[in-house]
């Protein structure tokens, strides 16, 4: 069947919007392939040759960068897994278990959504200083495990799962844990994927907490490490390098997206992979 005129217009509009969305990204990529000296004089130099990979070579010449990538992978990976686990458990508890004070506790969790990070960052920093956990993976990961949004999302999702499924499992003498692990949790995969994406991206791009918790260069995450290499007037004197850093920092996330694209699209669209 030939697409209708409306469909064609819609498609053309979507393509135009996609190009518009991609334009800044292409601009960043193009800037990253030009030398800093050239960009200091004129940024429209990206429309002409020569291009260079020097900025990327400069990033890789810093031996610490691989350590920073590793740190980011550990922090973002472990944090995402733990957030998924804790949010799922808490969400299931709020959705399915009755206990005293449940509503108050749930309200307190939701209140966490309204607390801005800068309001708690100093007490949190002092607390972790007293525990001696700064400059460690634990210090970078633990504060981010309290995820009110994750608990809320999973609670709502568990509530939407039909109770009949659990009752059927109960009839078969399944324990509460078995029901959670074998029956209900697999049904929440779209929500897990959504939460996982948000958690991973938040951890990968996190800057404020690593900034004040990791003061030793060997414990820097990638965002922090790359930022530390920027000179004071990087926006004019080192624009190409700055943009190369942005591309470099985004690469692992893009690779991850390429691998899990099907799941991510399904999760966001609410369908099956």
């Amino acid at each position, binding site marked *: 069947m030939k697409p209708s005129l409306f469909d064609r217009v819609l498609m053309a509009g979507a393509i135009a919007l996609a190009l518009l969305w991609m334009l800044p990204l292409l601009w960043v990529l193009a800037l990253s392939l030009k030398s800093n000296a050239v960009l200091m*004089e004129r*940024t429209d130099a990206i429309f002409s040759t020569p291009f260079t990979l020097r900025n990327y070579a400069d990033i890789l010449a810093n031996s610490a960068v691989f350590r920073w990538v590793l740190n980011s992978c550990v922090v973002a990976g472990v944090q995402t897994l733990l957030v998924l686990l804790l949010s799922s458990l808490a969400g299931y508890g709020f959705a399915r278990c009755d206990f005293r004070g449940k509503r108050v506790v749930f309200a307190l969790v939701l209140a966490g959504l309204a607390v801005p990070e800068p309001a708690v960052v100093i007490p949190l920093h002092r607390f972790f200083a007293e525990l001696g956990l700064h400059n460690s993976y634990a210090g970078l990961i633990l504060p981010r495990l309290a995820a009110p949004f994750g608990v809320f999302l999973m609670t709502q999702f568990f509530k939407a799962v039909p109770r009949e499924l659990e009752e059927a499992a109960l009839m078969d003498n399944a324990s509460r844990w078995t029901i959670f692990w074998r029956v209900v949790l697999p049904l929440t995969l779209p929500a897990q994927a959504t939460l996982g994406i948000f958690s991973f991206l938040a951890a990968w791009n996190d800057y404020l907490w690593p900034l*004040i918790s990791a003061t030793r260069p060997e414990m820097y995450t990638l965002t922090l490490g790359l930022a530390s290499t920027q000179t*004071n007037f990087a926006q*004019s004197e080192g624009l190409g390098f700055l943009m190369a850093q942005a591309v470099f920092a985004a690469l692992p996330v893009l690779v991850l997206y390429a691998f899990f694209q099907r799941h991510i699209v399904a999760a966001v669209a609410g369908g099956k992979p």
Partner: protein
Amino acid sequence: MKRHLLAFATALVACAAQAAPVEITLARFFGSCDAEFGQQTDPSQVSSECGIVTVLTNKFNAQQSGRIHVNTQVVEHSAYYPQLGARIVGGDLPTVAIMHSSVLGDFAKRDLLQPLEDGLETSDFTPHARRGVSFGGHVLALPYDSHAMLWHINLGLMKQAGLVDAAGHARLPTSSQELLNQARAFKRATGKPYFVWLTLNDPSFFARCILGLVNQQGATLFPKTDRAIALDTPEVKTAVTLMRTLYAEGLSTRHMDYSAALQAFMAGGGGVMLNGTWLLGQLNDRAAQVGNPLSHVYEAVPEPRLYAKAATWADSHVWVMLRNPRQTAAERAAALSFLRFLNDESLAWARTGQLPARQSAVDSPAFKGLPMRAALGPVAQIGTGLPTTVARQARVMGLLGDTISSIVVSGEPMEATLAKGQQRINRLLERESRFLEH
């Protein structure tokens, strides 16, 4: 046998002591360039801020090998102070840290800094540098440089406008009226604005300009107390009127942030760019090359005197040692040794374009032999900032800049906007004062 064991133990301890130099940490901005200069120990081969401070640290570590080792902890410039604040609260203190002298007061009022006059020779500091680090009779930091606003000049365009003297230098205005006349003549002759201004996303530009112009009239922004700014004075209005006229008549560029202004100046988009000493090296390198609008037609001079006295905004990078109850005597001695080394290497840092904080270095032939530097000596004398005791100076300068920008760029009414700006700044200072009292 016992004697042999004792000798063996002593030798072991001595070896251990030799193998374990005193470790100190150095918190700073300027970027990290270990990849490029990690093995370099000769500062004369480098000219960037990042490069020179890295190489100087390498040199010190090499000289003190086995005795002292400096571990550098680099943080991006805009995040540096928030991190330092958090580290102080959490007790994770660097041994030595860099700061701007304009923020030193906030740390001094909270008694967070160690006095250094016992460990450093302070008599050679320039007047501007000394003012910036002296609090309550103590020297609380080692001044490392003075950086100030300069007039970066495109002599090619100035010549085209007939604004060059017989020696080939720019003919600088000596009054606000002469400045307007020159700027108008420049625009008529070249079709370009006289000034390249940073009018977007850079409120400190306007704050620095106003500070210099008000001081040139013999006035101050804090005439009564360090807790109350006065923006309703005739001197402030005179300065703002001058800037507003320049902008309104198209005698300055418009809608340019830092990068755009720099690009415009390098592309020959205006006669004079008001910007910092830190650009000297780059622009000079640019001028040394052929085939660009600045080729052999660039010079930099201190802001000219338009009113009763010479004055220009200036700040300093300073090195401090934070109070740390856990610091050992050996660490303190090592840190002071590093500071003395940096002080001795003042001239190496001056190669970045910053002005030395030591008068002997400013007066030295080696400094004057650097490009443009001979003309910049006076900045060490005329550099001015907010009074050192004014709190939250970065925020105050930001609010001041926003206020002036509203009038000059957005065309807001002067009287009302100045009054509003004054109120906002004084409210901030009042809050800070109440906080410190409690």
